[in-house]
C-alpha cells in the first residue's frame, strides 16, 4: 500500500468519524488543525482505523502520535 493510499483511506475514516466531508489530511495535520478531533473522537478514530486496515494497535503503538505522518508510518509498519 502506498502512502497516498493509506492517507486516502485515513481521510475517509476521519470524514466518517468526525462527520465532516471537508476534512483533508496531510502528513503535517495535527489534532489542533481539526476542531472535532477530541479525545473521545480519537478513540473512535483508532477503532475505525484498526477495522479499516484490519490491524490491531498495541499499548506501545497508541502512545501520543504527533501528526498524521506518524500515524501513516505506524499503519505502514503494521500492514507491511
Amino acid at each position: 500500500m502506498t502512502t497516498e493510499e493509506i492517507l486516502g483511506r485515513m481521510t475517509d475514516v476521519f470524514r466518517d468519524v468526525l462527520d465532516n466531508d471537508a476534512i483533508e489530511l496531510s502528513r503535517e495535520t495535527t489534532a489542533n488543525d481539526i476542531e472535532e478531533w477530541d479525545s473521545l473522537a480519537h478513540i473512535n478514530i483508532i477503532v475505525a482505523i484498526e477495522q479499516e486496515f484490519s490491524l490491531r494497535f498495541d499499548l506501545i503503538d497508541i502512545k501520543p502520535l504527533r501528526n498524521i505522518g506518524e500515524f501513516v508510518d505506524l499503519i505502514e509498519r503494521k500492514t507491511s
Partner: protein
Amino acid sequence: MASDTLEQYFSYPLNPHALLRKKKALRRELSKRPDLAEKRVAMLGGSTTAEIRDMLELFLLHAGIRPVFYESEYNRYYEEVMFPENGLREFDPEIISIHTTSANILQFPSVSDTAETVDGLFSGVMNRFTDVWNRIEQEYGCPVIQNNFELPHYRLLGNLDAYDIHGRTAFINQLNHRFAEEARRRRNLFLNDINYLAAWFGLERWHDRLFWYSYKYAMNYEAIPLLADSIASIIKGIYGRTKKCLVLDLDNTLWGGVIGDDGLQGIRIGKETPEAEAYTEFQQFLKELKERGILLAVCSKNDEENAREGFTHPDMVLSLGDFAAFAANWQPKHENIRSIASTLNIGIDSLVFADDNPAEREIVRAQAPSVTVPELGCDVTKYIAILDRTGLFESVSVNADDLERNRFYTGNADRAREQEQYASYDDFLRSLDMVAEIAPFSSIYLDRIAQLTNKTNQFNLTTKRYTLPEMQAMMDDKRYITLYGRLNDRFGENGLISVMAGTIKGVELHIDLWLMSCRVLKRGMEAAMLDRLVSKAKEQGLSGIVGYYYPTAKNSMVRELFFDMGFSRIDIPEVDGTVWHLDISGNYSNKNLFIKVKP
C-alpha cells in the same frame, strides 16, 4: 441519508463497527425525526461511559426517544447518588442507568481469608449497591437500570474458582444471584444482564485490557453498541415501546420446503431429519414467544388452501389457532402486513417480519419502513439466535395480561364472525352480555395500568406517559380521580383495557389521561368509563369536566371523541390541541347502553 440506509444500521444482527464509525451522521439524521419524546437519563458510571452514552443516544433516538443526559464524573456513581447536591438532584432524572462492572468490586477474597472475612467482603459490596438503590428510591423513585457483573478475566483457582469461597468466579456468581433477588423484589430495579452479554460476546474479547489501561473502558469497544442496545431495550420496555407481533413467512421459514410444490408429505418438520428437527425447534421457540404474549401472524405467498393444509401435518408444533392473523395470498407482502396491523388494531411499527427470502425482506423494508425486518438469513439453525438477540420483544415484567393476550385476540376473531349474523350492530352488542368492572386504580393492577398507559397510541386523548411510581403517586393522591376498566363478555375476558385519570382543580376535573386498548374498540366501553368518571366527580361536588385532545401521528381516531360524548369545545389558545367542557352540575344521563357495570 435515505431512511432505508439509516435503518440498515439498526437492523439485526448489529454491525458495531459501522455504528461506531458513522455515529455522528446517524445522530444528526435521527435527531431530525418528528415526535421525539424527551427523557432525562442519568448515566452513573464505575468506568468510562462517554461512548456508551453516545451509542445509547442512537438507539433511543431510533426508538423515538430523545435522551437528555447527565453523566457522572469518572467512577463517581456512588458519590453522585449519596451526595446529590453535586448535580443529580437538580437534573431530576427520569431514568438512572448505573454502569458498574466487575472492575468496581473493590476487594475480592484472597485465598487466606476466613469464611467470615469473605462474608464481610460480600456484604460490603452488596451494601454499597443497596445503599445506592435505597437512596434513589427515596430521592427520585425513578426506574434504575443496574448492570450485574461479568465473569472475571482470570481465574486464580482455575475450575475451583467457580466453587471455592475464595474464588472470584464464585464471588461474582453469588453477587449476581443476590442482584437478581433484589430486582425481583424491587419494582423499580431493572437488571442489565452484562454477565450474559459478555458470555455471548466472548469473555476473552470482552475483557480488552488495552482499552482498560488506556481509556478506562471496562469492556471491548466493539461490545459497547451491544451494551447500549441492551440498555435501550430495557428503556423501551419501561416505556412500553416493545414490539407486539411477529409476522412469519411459511415456506422455508416455518417449515422446510415449499408446500405448494412439495405437498404435505414433502415439507420438512418433525424429528426425521436434522433439517426437520431444526424447524421443529424454531416452531417451539415461536410457541413460547406466543405464550408470553407476543402475537403471531402468517404472511405467505401461497394459495390459502395450501397454506392452511400445512398445519394439518402431524408433526406441526404450531396450529392455526396460534395465529392472531393469517394472510396467505399473492398480494405484495407489505400490503398484507398493513392489513394484518389493521385487523389486529395495532400500529404497524409494532410488527416484526421474519422471512427467509432476502427479496421479500427488502421490499418490506422499502415499502413499510416502520416494520422491523431482522436479517434472518436462510439458515434455519440460526433463526432462533437472530430473533432472540434482537431484544425486540423485551419487556420489563411478565403480567397476567401478557399471558392472556393471544386469547383476547382470538376471541376477537370469534366476535367478528358472530357480528355478521345480527341485524344491527346494536343487537350484536346486546348479544355479547358485556360486564365491566370500573374502579379507582388499585395496587394489584398498577403494573398493567402503567403498561397500558405507556404503550397505547391510537385510542389515547393525551398520550401522556407515566412511570410506575408516578402512577402510584396519583393513586394515593386525593387530588386525582383515577379509574381503570376491565371488560368481560360471553366469549371470555378482555382484561384491563381502559384507563382514565383527572386532576381536581376548583370545581372542575381536568382529564389527564383517557385511553383504551384497541382490542375493545366500538364496544361502548368509552361511554361506560365516562359515566363512572362523571359519577365520581359528582360525588366530590364538582360541576364540570374539562377534556384535552392532543393530536399525534397516531390518535386521530379520537379527535371527535369529546364532541361525540356531548362536550362543547372551548378555545384556549396556548394549548396545542383542542379543549372541551362538559357541564355536570345538572342531571347527567348515562351514555352507556350495552355494558352492565358492576357497582
